């Protein structure tokens, strides 16, 4: 990601002298206007990114934005990019609209953490939710083996952990009546490192233990069992249940964690 961002910025800065009227021979007035607007926009964005990169080094937060930028500049062909390819970008107002939709329109939004996270959650809702939920409903799951939905979740968490957990929390609430989706979300949480899942994972696991369905209750305990941490013991010791099988399982997990040491 960092490479893409650096490439995006440095490539533009290295070639910006070539963004002149000489390269616009044969274009219509409308196309010229679009190009001018686009370069102006890219210039602004590049400067903003460059200063953000240098001043704050907050590169990770901007992965998606920088990828979009890199894509707009030279499509999927990052390595062989040339100025010609840049000029081959479709010059129409939809490009400008795409840029304006995808990127914060004001410089201050680059520094607005709420804006960034909200945009990311919106993205997850509109682009990932359906695929993820379908997998949870239909994928073959076996304890001990990595599932496809887990791979999606991990990849999104690497981009923006907080926004992804917020989105997952939303999905959990929205689908609390669906056994397969609720179970799927809990299985996925149980496979995250505790530090990554914190604090939403703990809350969801506790909510699961209080669910009326036994399978969901068990998955809630499994999460703490997998984390095997001080917090796991603390939480499990404070769970009150009158279901014998659940008590037995919880006590077994507490005993295992205490006797084998804290794992995380």
């Amino acid at each position, binding site marked *: 990601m960092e490479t893409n961002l650096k490439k995006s910025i440095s490539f533009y800065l290295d070639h910006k002298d070539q963004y002149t009227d000489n390269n616009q021979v044969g274009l219509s007035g409308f196309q010229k206007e679009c190009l001018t607007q686009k370069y102006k926009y890219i210039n602004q964005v590049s400067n903003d990114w460059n200063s953000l990169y240098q001043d704050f080094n907050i590169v990770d937060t901007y992965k998606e934005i920088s990828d979009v930028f890199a894509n707009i500049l030279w499509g999927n062909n990052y390595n062989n990019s040339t100025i010609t390819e840049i000029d081959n970008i479709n010059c129409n107002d939809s490009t400008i609209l795409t840029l304006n939709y995808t990127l914060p329109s004001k410089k201050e939004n680059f520094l607005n953490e709420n804006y960034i996270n909200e945009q990311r959650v919106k993205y997850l809702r509109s682009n990932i939710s359906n695929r993820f939920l379908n997998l949870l409903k239909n994928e073959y799951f076996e304890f*001990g083996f990595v599932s496809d939905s887990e791979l999606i979740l991990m990849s999104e968490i690497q981009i923006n952990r907080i926004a992804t957990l917020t989105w997952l929390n939303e999905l959990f609430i929205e689908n609390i009546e669906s056994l397969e989706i609720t179970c799927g979300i809990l299985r996925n949480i149980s496979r995250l490192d505790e530090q990554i899942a914190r604090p939403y994972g703990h809350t969801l696991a506790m909510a699961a233990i209080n669910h009326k369905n036994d399978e969901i209750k068990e998955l809630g305990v499994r999460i703490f069992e997998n984390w095997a941490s001080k917090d796991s013991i603390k939480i499990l010791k404070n769970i009150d249940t009158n279901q014998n099988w659940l008590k037995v399982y919880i006590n077994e997990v507490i005993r295992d964690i205490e006797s084998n040491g804290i794992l995380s």
Partner: protein
Amino acid sequence: MEYLVRKINLAKWKCKIGNDIGGDAITGCLRTSSNKISVWIAEDDSNYYNAILAMISTQERFETVDFVIFKTEDIKSKGLGIEKTPGKTPVKDLIDTHVDLVEITYSKLGHLKDIIEKIIEDEKTIRITRAKSIEIVKRAIETQQLLKEDLNDGLKKHL
């Protein structure tokens, strides 16, 4: 007498619809491939650790897992065929302790379901907790039954 061991998702068997086992238990735990179901051989019903080792050592994560153990003769008496095939496990001396239940049909699947349901009713399932799984694999490495390097990275990091 030989016994056979199969991994199941116990929670799916406990979520009944009325008095019947839910479809998820059948399609999830008795999933066939080429009309075969993979099981591991145990010497007897109290000496099943090798069969369990064979299975958990193929995993990508340590997690609590439930198993059922049934007599080979119970399987045969229901008309289910058994065929010895090499098992997929990093424990080399256990590769030949694997069999497939073969030519599984809809009705034979029903017989298998009945056998497992009875084991669950009798509370004779075996639960191997996550901690116990780690212990089993660690012991196998210590006794050189298994090489750590042959395990998935997801297991190695906990050993």
